[in-house]
Each structure stands twice: as structure tokens, then as C-alpha cells.
């Protein structure tokens, strides 16, 4: 891991000093023992603060999108002939590159506006699972020891097998190595267990309508409408989200059951063939809403109906953005 970090810092410093990128998005050490923080660096000297470990959780592709779009906004005041592109570097694991592919397919930015430093990924620690493993106690010290996590809480120290606290998205990850990159760091990571990808969905599908709705309602009742899920999601990049539109107003602002459900259902449905299962929305949710079950169901439908997985290849556009005469249509005529 240290070796990857060293190479990562060298590569990032080089990109910045050679002015191949104007800014670079990565992770830095956090102020809490079990977190890293996303960071944006612009000077070669800052490259030394980059880290790479299993606490690097949120998908950074959203930052690339935001930085480029903010830059374009500011370029509006510049004469067309003087306008410049802003090139953003990014530390990207498999799922991050899937998001970049999706951005490129959806024409959000050009390939030459992003420089991808690919890193192999062995999965990241889910805060929710870590909290459960620590029985709700605050973790005051935490370090990796091979495949285990040595944690100290106010109740004492404990050793947690890493596998037990890795995010569900990581455990069944199909693409833990970058799909596209401009440079690769480290050796390819060993495969995870994609065979178990839809286990939870299969179970959920077998429940009765009432039970499924009950579960959905229970999960949505936890939501406080902070929008952390939407804001971290690389696929949620609408300039103005429907939630914030008022003419017409699609959804009320309150946490009335129906308002929250409408917000979440509509966000989830906008992810058909677009969710890369990076798990960021689940990871950032302060209330622990189980969004993955519903997103994975759509993902499974995408695979079964269109043989498509979001961002798996630049040549395979999202099913709702493409048309084929062989597209399945039974679900329309015989739902």
C-alpha cells in the first residue's frame, strides 16, 4: 500500500509540475482515524499529501464533473477565442473509471479534459459496517494490519477482519481494476466476488408486493432530505435537480412520507443503466438508508433486459440513450 502511495504521489506531482493537469482530485488523510477526505490539489508540492488506502471511499468522478463545469461557467466571461480547457487529473479505482466513462458517453466533457491515474482497488471500508462492528462506539484509533483492521474504541480494542467491514458494493465488485486510464499504478487487484452481486435483490424480488413496499417505506422514513446521496453521485449531475425546480413543482420540500418517497424514487429511476454501484450514496448517507437494494434491482434489470452494465466500456452506451431493433419490449406489452 505504501508503495502505491509513493508511486501515486510521484505521478501526481509530475502531472502538476509538467502542467499536464490544472488540478488533481485525490484523497488525503482525514481528521478522524477511520476516514480520508477527498482533496483537490493544484501545486506539485501538495502531491505528498495524497493517500491511498481502504478508507478512500467516495467516488471522485463527481468532483471532476463539478470542477470542469464551474470552469466552463467562469469561461463565459472570457472572449470565445481566449477560452481554455481545464484539465483535471483524478485518482481512479474501477468504479470511478466507470463513472468517467458514463460522463464521456453522456458528453459531459471530452476525454482530453481528464487525466486518469488508475489504481487497483481491494475495496473500501463501509462506515456503517465499521460502526456496527464497533457496536456503535466511536473509533478513536484505527490501523490496517494485513487483512484485519485494528480498532480502539472507548470500550476497548478489537481486531476486525477487513472482509467484514468492506462495503457491499466492493464485496461483489466486478470492476475493481480501472477500465480506462492514462497511467496505471500498482499491480492489478485480485477479483472480488461478483457472483454474489444480486443475492440481496433476488431475495427482495421474492417478497410479496406488500412486504417490498413495507421495506421501501421503512427505509425512506429514515431520509432527512440532506441530499448527500444525490450530491455525491457522479451520475446525478443535473444542473438543477427536479427536487429544486418550482415551475412546475414536482415534489414538496417537506419530509412528509410521500415527498421523501417521490424524491428517492425519481432519483433512483434516473439511474437505470447509469448506476455504477460505487456505493457512494450509501456511504455518505448520515442516516444509513439502504439505497443499494433498489439501485441494484435496476442494475439487474439492465443486465437482463439489455445486457448492459453502466460504464463497463466506452462502446456500450446506457440502454436508455441507445436504440436497437432487438431491444426487449415484453416488459412494456406484458408487464
Amino acid at each position, binding site marked *: 500500500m505504501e508503495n502505491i502511495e509513493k508511486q501515486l504521489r510521484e505521478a501526481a506531482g509530475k502531472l502538476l509540475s509538467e502542467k499536464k493537469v490544472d488540478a488533481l482530485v485525490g484523497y488525503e488523510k482525514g481528521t478522524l482515524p477511520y476516514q480520508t477526505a477527498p482533496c483537490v490539489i493544484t501545486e506539485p508540492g501538495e502531491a505528498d499529501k495524497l493517500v491511498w488506502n481502504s478508507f478512500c471511499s467516495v467516488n471522485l468522478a463527481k468532483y471532476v464533473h463539478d470542477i470542469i463545469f464551474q470552469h466552463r461557467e467562469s469561461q463565459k466571461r472570457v472572449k470565445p477565442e481566449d477560452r481554455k480547457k481545464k484539465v483535471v487529473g483524478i485518482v481512479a479505482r474501477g468504479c470511478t473509471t466507470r463513472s468517467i466513462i458514463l460522463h464521456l458517453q453522456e458528453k459531459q466533457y471530452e476525454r482530453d479534459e481528464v487525466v486518469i491515474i488508475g489504481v487497483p482497488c481491494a475495496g473500501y471500508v463501509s462506515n456503517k459496517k465499521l460502526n456496527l462492528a464497533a457496536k456503535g462506539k466511536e473509533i478513536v484509533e484505527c490501523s490496517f494490519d494485513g487483512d484485519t483492521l485494528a480498532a480502539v474504541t472507548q470500550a476497548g480494542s478489537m481486531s476486525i477482519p477487513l472482509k467484514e467491514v468492506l462495503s457491499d458494493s466492493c464485496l461483489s465488485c466486478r470492476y475493481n481494476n480501472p477500465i480506462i486510464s492514462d497511467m496505471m499504478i500498482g499491480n492489478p487487484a485480485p477479483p472480488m466476488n461478483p457472483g454474489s452481486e444480486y443475492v440481496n435483490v433476488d431475495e427482495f424480488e421474492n417478497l410479496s408486493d406488500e412486504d417490498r413496499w413495507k421495506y421501501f417505506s421503512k427505509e425512506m422514513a429514515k431520509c432527512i432530505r440532506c441530499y448527500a446521496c444525490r450530491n455525491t453521485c457522479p451520475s446525478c449531475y443535473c444542473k438543477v435537480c427536479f427536487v429544486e425546480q418550482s415551475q412546475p413543482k414536482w415534489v414538496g420540500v417537506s*419530509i412528509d412520507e410521500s415527498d421523501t418517497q417521490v424524491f428517492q424514487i425519481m432519483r433512483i429511476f434516473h439511474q437505470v443503466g447509469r448506476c455504477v454501484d460505487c456505493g457512494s450514496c450509501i456511504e455518505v448517507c448520515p442516516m444509513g438508508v439502504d439505497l443499494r437494494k433498489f439501485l441494484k434491482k435496476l442494475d439487474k434489470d439492465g443486465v437482463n433486459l439489455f445486457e448492459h452494465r453502466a460504464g463497463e466500456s466506452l462502446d456500450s452506451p446506457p440502454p436508455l440513450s441507445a436504440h436497437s431493433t432487438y431491444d426487449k419490449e415484453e416488459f412494456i406489452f406484458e408487464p
Partner: protein
Amino acid sequence: METRLIKKDLLAGLIKGLAQDTLVYAPVQDEDNVLFKVLEKGMEPLTEYDNTKNAPKNFFFPQQETLMRYLKKERGSELLGVPGVTAEAVLFGVRPCDARSFVLLDNIFDDPQYRDPYYVDRREKTTIISIACTRPPYTACFCTSVGGHPLSSEGVDVSLIDLGDNWLAEFVTEKGEKLMKKLGDLPKGDEQWASKKEALAEKAAGAITTKIPGKDIKPWLDENFDHPFWDTIHASCLACGTCTYLCPTCHCFDITDEIKKSDGRRVRSWDSCMYWLFTHETSGHNPRTSQKQRWRQRFMHKFKYFVDNFDAIACVGCGRCVMYCPVNIDIRKIAQDISKL
């Protein structure tokens, strides 16, 4: 001040009893989270917990509140009245930091000139029982840096202090003493309590190791609205509302009319300075266009504007925003970094 002893294992039952005929809001385990919720009949509250994820301000200042109802007619609308007065209630298990948030929020909602009837009504009818932090729960706690204390009874009617086998209950206010009568016969507390409390308080305060500069950075904030430092904190911010929605002192809101067919409700709901929509004007102009400006606003509101207006920092040091920020933007670090400038 009256004091009483409550046997360790009897407390939860006493509160459960109160909930038989009174509205009780208390910490309960809700799947992975400890949350303040209405204690349904037969439910027992938690008495051993670190702190709740949601702040108890929610009880006085709920995320959404109907201010009035109206009937939309072909021409104009007819006022259907305002919601009735609330019932007597007990807010159990508040940590001293969160209890201080009520004192701070009173400045806003109980201002003699602009008295908020909804907030004040609940506040007046609610008896607050705190559980003092003899062992401060988190390393992210920093109440002592912003004017609080782990054993403080500021904003509290009844303060419960863990003495090992017993809870020592201090009945701080008249409201608290009234509640004492409802609790039945309880043995009196130790006569020498006051002197013993001092040692306990010192130990608890000593356990809070995180220190941040509180009012010390106010002079810098007064002078440095345009300082380049403000460019350094927001880059990773998701612009979500986690920090503001879990914060015990954040109190910004929006008022909207929610209409279903002809039934209209004027609703007050939480808003967050982290959202671009917060300052978006009808004309389309937005005076705060970047997350930098929004972050500066959040910090300045807590550490400068509130101090200007009410001579107190609008932060109680509970650590929620520190622990639950999805991208680890740490308000403690910001304050510490400013003090080094």
C-alpha cells in the same frame, strides 16, 4: 436545589411510566442509529448511550411544521385556522451540549420583538431532563471550548448525573420540581453533593481533550471576510445538508405553501446555507454563487454573526458535524487553522 437518588436500573422504567400519560421524547435505538423519538407507550428509553444522531432541537423546531391551513377558493382563500396548542411534554436524555442549544435558539425564536409562538409554546410546556456527561462520549466532543461543560445544567430542568449505582437527580428549575412530584417518593441526595460534584466536573472536563479557539478568532473573522483562507476549505464539500440538519443550533428555514387540490398548508421547513437554492432569488440572481461563500457563511454565522448579535458562539461542541460529514470537513480544524493565521 432539591436532589434525589434514582437507582440505576429504575430510571428507564420511571420514564416509561411518564410516557403513559405524557408526551415523552427520548433516545431510542432505531436499527443502527440512536435517535430522539416519541416514546410510544410501553417503550423504554435508552439511558446508556453516547449521543443521538439527530439533535433534540427537532422537538422544538421540527424539520417541517404546519403554520396554518387554508382552503383555496376560486377567488382568494379562506383561512382554516392555525394548529392548536401543544400538550405538556418531557424531553428525556438530552446531553448538556444539546441542552445549551435550546438556550442559544431562544435568542432567535423567543426574541421579545419576534416571538415564534410555535417554538415558544413547546418550549414552555416541555420539561427537559438531561444526562450529564460524566464520561464525555466522543473524542470529537469540544463543548468546553465553546462555552459549555459536560456537567452543565444550563437549559435543563432536571439534571441526571451518573454516580455508579445511582443517578443523582438535580431538580434545577420549578418545572423540574413539579416533575419530581410526579416521579413519586425517591431518597434524598447526599448533603455533601455540591463539594463532590466539583471533583466529578473537573474530571469530566479534563476528559475533553479537543480544544478549539472559540471567541479568540472573532477579531480575525471581523477583519477577514475576503481572506484567501476561505478558498481552502470548500473544495471537497458535497453541498449536502448533513452538517446543518444534524446540528443542534442551525435554525435556518424556508416557508412554502403546499397545496393539494384545494387544501393549502403553509409549511415551515428546515433549509440549509449549504444549498445553492438557499439564497437563490426570484429574479434568478444568486448572491452566493459558490460553495466557498456558503461555507464562509456557515462558519461566520456560528463564530461571528451570532456572537455579534447574542454574545455567544452558535456551536455547542457536540461533534455531530465532525463525525457525520461524509467528506470529513472538520469545523474544529477550520477554527484551529484560523487561529494560526
